[in-house]
C-alpha cells in the first residue's frame, strides 16, 4: 500500500515541506531534517587499504595459471583496404600459441584492429605481432575538421551512424544521441546533423531577439581532442571453462553490458558468460564497451585452449581507447542594457573521428533562463579513433564557448559578470544564486580590479573570472542491490556496477551501515560481477544517486526480517522494536538483543533482501532507455584567479573556488576528491592537452605521456571547495550527481580571468603560451598602446 510522507526539502534556510507518495516497503526517506551518523560524514574510503598496500588487483594485474599474453596488430594507416594478412611467419615464432585475424576488409583510423597473436610472454607476443605481414592499399583520408567538411572530402564511412559499420558504437547517453541521429540519416559527405538534443529543445525566436538587442556577440570557439588517458589502459583476461563458458576479467565499467556484448558476439546465452573486475584504474567515460579487445582475447584463448590477457599499450590507448571529440562552435548571444540575456545560439561542428557523439549544445539549453535559444549540432566524420563519452560529454567544450561569450556580452553591455549570472541563470536552479554569492565572496570579487579588462602597466597581470557549471539528475530506475545479513553479524552488499575512483563501495557501505546501525567498515561491498544484481556503469555521475537508494532499501528489508525473528525470540510485537546505533535491538518492554545475538537467530544462517532504485518520487523529467533524468538540475559555479606573464604568454592558475551542489553530500571527503578531480581534469584539458595529428600521414604525433601533456603536481592551484547540501525529496537517500559538473565550468572561468587580467580573449584551447601571445597581439592591434 503506498503511503504519503511529508519531507523537508530545500537548502540552507530555504526549506519547505512537500508531500510524497512512497511504496509501503520503502524506508522513510532521509530529508533535510534527518540526523544521520554515517551518511554525510567524511568516512575514508572502505577499499583504501588494498590500494595503498598494492594488494588491489586491477585487470592488468590478473595472472591466471597458464595465461598467455596477447598483442593486437593495428593499422598504421588512417584509411586503407586490407588486401592480405599473412600470419605464417608469426605462427612459427617461439612461444606463439594462437593467431587471430579480424573479419575486416577496411580500416578507418590509425590503430584500427587487424589481427592478434598470443604467446607465452609479452615480449614473444610483441615480436610475433611484428612478424605478421599486412598488405594494405591505403586510401584517401581526412584527419582535420576543415578538410572533413569539404564537399569533395573522402567519406569516412557511409550509412547508419548507430550501426557504425565496423566502428564501435558509442554507449550510454551518447548511444541514445547516436540513435536519434540515426532517425535522421541525412548524411552529407562526412557531416551528419544531430537534430535533437538530450538536454533541451529550441525555444523562442532568436532572430527577433537579436534584432531588438542592445548588444550581440558573435564568436567562434575551438576545443581540441582530449584523450581519456586512464592510467590503467583497457585490459581483459579471457578464459574458457568447461561447458563452453566464457569467464572474463575486464576493466569495462559495465560488466553486465560487457556480458551481453560478448555473449552476443559468441552466440552464447547470457548466463554462460561471466564478466568481473575488482578495481578499475580510471575510466572517465571510456571503457564503456568490452569490444573489440576482449572478444579478441577470447578468440585467442579459444584457439590456444589457455587464458589470454590483452592490455593495450599507452600508444594504442591514445589511438583507439576513446576520446573527447573536438568541437568548433559558432556562438551568438544577445542582451539588453538592463542586463537581460535575450538570445543564445550555437552551431557546433564536432568530430568524434570514426564515431559519433560530438554534440556540445547541452549547456546552451540548460544553464540560462533565456527565452530564445537555438542550437544545431553536427557530427563530422574523420579518420581518427572513435570518440566516446568523457566526463560531462560536450559540456566542458560548450560551457567554455557559452560562458566566455557571456562575459564578452557583459563587457559590451557594461554588466558585472556575477550580477548578470545572478539575473539570468538562477531560474531553474535558484540555489545557484547562493553559490554565486558564496564564491564571489571567497575569491574576493569585490576587490576585482579592471572590470573592463586590460588595465595595468607591468608585464605580470592578475585577474579573476567566473563561470557556471551544470549537470543533470541522471539515474537508472530498476537498478538493484542485494544485502545479506549473516548469522555472525557480518553484512554483504552485492551489485554489478564497477569501482573506479568515485567510491561506490564506500557510499553503499555508508547507506547500509546507516540503516542497520552499524559502522561503514562492517559492510563488505562486492561489485563488478555480471552475476550480481544489475546496476549501471558509472556514467552521467549517476552511481551514488542510483545505487544508494536500493542499497538502503535492501538493508531496510533485510532488517525487517531480522526484527521479525528478534520479536519472536523476545515474545513481543515487531512494531515495538527499534534498531539502535551499534546494532542493538531494543524493545519497548526494555528487553534488548545485541546485533550478533539477533543475527544468530536467522534461519539457515543468513537472510538476503533485494532493493530496487525507484523512479524519482515526482517522476523523471525525461526517461531514456539508458537512464532517466530527474526534474531538478545540478548547478555549481567556479571562480578562477590567474596570473599572466605578458612577456611569455605564460598563464598560472593561482586559485580556483568551486561551489557545488550534488543533492545530499553523501561523503564530504570523497566528494571533495571528486570536485578537485573534475577541476584538475578541466585545467589539464584547457591548458595542456591536445591530440596532434600529422595531416600528411594521418597519424597521431603524440601518442604517449611525453608529448601529450597532462597537468601535474607543479601546476596545481589552491583549490577551495564549498558544498551546498540541497534536498529534493526524490529518493530515500536524496543523493545527486557530482563527478561531471565539477569539470564543466573551470576552463571558462580561467579564460574569463585571463581577459580580466589582460583584456585579451582566448577562443581556442588549450591555452598555450603561443595562443596567449597571439591574443595579446590581437588586443594590441585593437587598442594600440
Amino acid at each position: 500500500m503506498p503511503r504519503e510522507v511529508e519531507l523537508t526539502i530545500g537548502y540552507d534556510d530555504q526549506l519547505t515541506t512537500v508531500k510524497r507518495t512512497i511504496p509501503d516497503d520503502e524506508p522513510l526517506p532521509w530529508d533535510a531534517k534527518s540526523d544521520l551518523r554515517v551518511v554525510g560524514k567524511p568516512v575514508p574510503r572502505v577499499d583504501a587499504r588494498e590500494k595503498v598496500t598494492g594488494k588491489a588487483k586491477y585487470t592488468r594485474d590478473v595472472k591466471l595459471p597458464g595465461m598467455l599474453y596477447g598483442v593486437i596488430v593495428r593499422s598504421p594507416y588512417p584509411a586503407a583496404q586490407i588486401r592480405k594478412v599473412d600470419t605464417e611467419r608469426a605462427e612459427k615464432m617461439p612461444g606463439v600459441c594462437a593467431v587471430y585475424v579480424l573479419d575486416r576488409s577496411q580500416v578507418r583510423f590509425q590503430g584500427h584492429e587487424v589481427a592478434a597473436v598470443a604467446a607465452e610472454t609479452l615480449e614473444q607476443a610483441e615480436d610475433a605481432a611484428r612478424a605478421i605481414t599486412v598488405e594494405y592499399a591505403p586510401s584517401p583520408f581526412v584527419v582535420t575538421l576543415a578538410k572533413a567538411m569539404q564537399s569533395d572530402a573522402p567519406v569516412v564511412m557511409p550509412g547508419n551512424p548507430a550501426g557504425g559499420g565496423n566502428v564501435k558504437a558509442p554507449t550510454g547517453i551518447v548511444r541514445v544521441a547516436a540513435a536519434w541521429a540515426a532517425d535522421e540519416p541525412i548524411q552529407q559527405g562526412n557531416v551528419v546533423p544531430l537534430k535533437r538534443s538530450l538536454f533541451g529543445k529550441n525555444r523562442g525566436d532568436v532572430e527577433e531577439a537579436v534584432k531588438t538587442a542592445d548588444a550581440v556577440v558573435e564568436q567562434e570557439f575551438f576545443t581540441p581532442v582530449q584523450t581519456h588517458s586512464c592510467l590503467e589502459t583497457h585490459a581483459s583476461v579471457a578464459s574458457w571453462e568447461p561447458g563452453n563458458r566464457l569467464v572474463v576479467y575486464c576493466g569495462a565499467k559495465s560488466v553486465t553490458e560487457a556480458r551481453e556484448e560478448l555473449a552476443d558476439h559468441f552466440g552464447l546465452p547470457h548466463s554462460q558468460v561471466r564478466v568481473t573486475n575488482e578495481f578499475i584504474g580510471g575510466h572517465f567515460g571510456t571503457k564503456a564497451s568490452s569490444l573489440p579487445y576482449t572478444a579478441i582475447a577470447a578468440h585467442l584463448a579459444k584457439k590456444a585452449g589457455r587464458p589470454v590477457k590483452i592490455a593495450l599499450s599507452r600508444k594504442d590507448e591514445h589511438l583507439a581507447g576513446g576520446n573527447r571529440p573536438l568541437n568548433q562552435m559558432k556562438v551568438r548571444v544577445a542582451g539588453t542594457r538592463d542586463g537581460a540575456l535575450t538570445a543564445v545560439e550555437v552551431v557546433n561542428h564536432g568530430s568524434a573521428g570514426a564515431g559519433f557523439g560530438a554534440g556540445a549544445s547541452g549547456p546552451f539549453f540548460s544553464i540560462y533562463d533565456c527565452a530564445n535559444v537555438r542550437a544545431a549540432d553536427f557530427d563530422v566524420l574523420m579518420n581518427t579513433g572513435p570518440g566516446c563519452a568523457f566526463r560531462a560529454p560536450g559540456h566542458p567544450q560548450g560551457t567554455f564557448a557559452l560562458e566566455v561569450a557571456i562575459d564578452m556580452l557583459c563587457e559590451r553591455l557594461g554588466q558585472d559578470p556575477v550580477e548578470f549570472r545572478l539575473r539570468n541563470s538562477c531560474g531553474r536552479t535558484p540555489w545557484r544564486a547562493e553559490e554565486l554569492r558564496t564564491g564571489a565572496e571567497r575569491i574576493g570579487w569585490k576587490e576585482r580590479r579592471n572590470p573592463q579588462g586590460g588595465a595595468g602597466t607591468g608585464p605580470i597581470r592578475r585577474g579573476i573570472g567566473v563561470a557556471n557549471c551544470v549537470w543533470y539528475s541522471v539515474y537508472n530506475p530498476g537498478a538493484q542491490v542485494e544485502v545479506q545479513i549473516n548469522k555472525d553479524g557480518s553484512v554483504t552488499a552485492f551489485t554489478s556496477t564497477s569501482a573506479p575512483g568515485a567510491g561506490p563501495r564506500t557510499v553503499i557501505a555508508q547507506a547500509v551501515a546507516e540503516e542497520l546501525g552499524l559502522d561503514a567498515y562492517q559492510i563488505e561491498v562486492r561489485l563488478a560481477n555480471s552475476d550480481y544484481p544489475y546496476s549501471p556503469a558509472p556514467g552521467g555521475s549517476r552511481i551514488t544517486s542510483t545505487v544508494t537508494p536500493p542499497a538502503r532499501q535492501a538493508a531496510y528489508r533485510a532488517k525487517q526480517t531480522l526484527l521479525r525473528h528478534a520479536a519472536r525470540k523476545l515474545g513481543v510485537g515487531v512494531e515495538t522494536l527499534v534498531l539502535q546505533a551499534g546494532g542493538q535491538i531494543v524493545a519497548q518492554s526494555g528487553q534488548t538483543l545485541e546485533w550478533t545475538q539477533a543475527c544468530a537467530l536467522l534461519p539457515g544462517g543468513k537472510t538476503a533482501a533485494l532493493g530496487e532504485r525507484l523512479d524519482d518520487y515526482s517522476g523523471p523529467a525525461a526517461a531514456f532507455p539508458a537512464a532517466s533524468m530527474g526534474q531538478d538540475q545540478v548547478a555549481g559555479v567556479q571562480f578562477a584567479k590567474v596570473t599572466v606573464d605578458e612577456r611569455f604568454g605564460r598563464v598560472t592558475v593561482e586559485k580556483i573556488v568551486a561551489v557545488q551542489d550534488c543533492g545530499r553530500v553523501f561523503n564530504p571527503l570523497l566528494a571533495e576528491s571528486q570536485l578537485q578531480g573534475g577541476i584538475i581534469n578541466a585545467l589539464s584539458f584547457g591548458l595542456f592537452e591536445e591530440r596532434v595529428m600529422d595531416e600528411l600521414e594521418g597519424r597521431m604525433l603524440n601518442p604517449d605521456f611525453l608529448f601529450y601533456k597532462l597537468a601535474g603536481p607543479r601546476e596545481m592551484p589552491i583549490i577551495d571547495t564549498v558544498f551546498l547540501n540541497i534536498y529534493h525529496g526524490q529518493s530515500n537517500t536524496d543523493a545527486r550527481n557530482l563527478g561531471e559538473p565539477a569539470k564543466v565550468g573551470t576552463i571558462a572561468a580561467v579564460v574569463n580571468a585571463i581577459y580580466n587580467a589582460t583584456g585579451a580573449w582566448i577562443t581556442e584551447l588549450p591555452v598555450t603560451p603561443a595562443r596567449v601571445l597571439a591574443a595579446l597581439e590581437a588586443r594590441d592591434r585593437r587598442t594600440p598602446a
Partner: protein
Amino acid sequence: MRKTRDKSVESRPTPSTASGISRRSFLKGAGASAAGLATARLSLPAAKAGEQKSAAPILGPDPVPMTLRVNGQTYTARLEPRVTLADALRDHLDLTGTKLICDRGACGGCTVLLDTEPVVSCMVLAITAQGKEIRTVEGLAQNDTLDSLQEAFIAHDALQCGYCTPGMLMSCRALLNRNPKPGLAEIKAAVSGNICRCGTYPHVFAAVLAASGQDPQSMRR
C-alpha cells in the same frame, strides 16, 4: 620468474610498427649488437666503451640467471637481459603493486626505491638492479602495520582509482626519508614526475604534510 624463454628471433619492422622502433626491440637490438641503422648510430659511444673493455661478457638475447633483492627477500630467475625491472616485478615475481602506466618513464607510476633512490622501474633493466635493495609498495607496511604515509593517504583520501597510488607513495616515502619535514614546494617537486589522472594531487600534498607532522590546512592559504 617461474618461466624461462626460448631464444628470441630477430624482428623486422612491418608497416604496423613503421611509426617507430619500440623500446623493447631497441634494447634488444642494442644488447645483441644488431646492425639496424638507428641502433648503430645511437650505440656508437657504447661500442667504443665496449672496445676498451673487450673482456666484458655479452649477455643475451637468451635468458640469463638473475638475483634480485626485493623487500628484503631474494628472488632468483632466468630472464632475458631486455626485461625491465617493472616487467620483472609484475610479470615474473607477481609483485603487481607496482603499476606500468606509460612504459616510457613519463608518469612515475612504476616508481620503486633502488637502495634509497626513487627510480621509474620501466626505465631500469632488471639485470642492472641486481645487488641493490629494491623496495616496492608491497614493502611499505611492516607485517600488518601500515606506514604512516599509507595511513595519511587513507585519512586524507589521497587516492581515487588508486592506480597512481603505489608510485605516489614511493616518491613520497623517498622524500620523507631524505627530508622529514618538507614544505609544500618540496612535496610538489618530489611528486612532479607522478601523474594522477583522477586529480588527487591536493590530497596527496595534504597527506604528506600530515604524515610529516605538519598542518595539512596550511596548503590552502
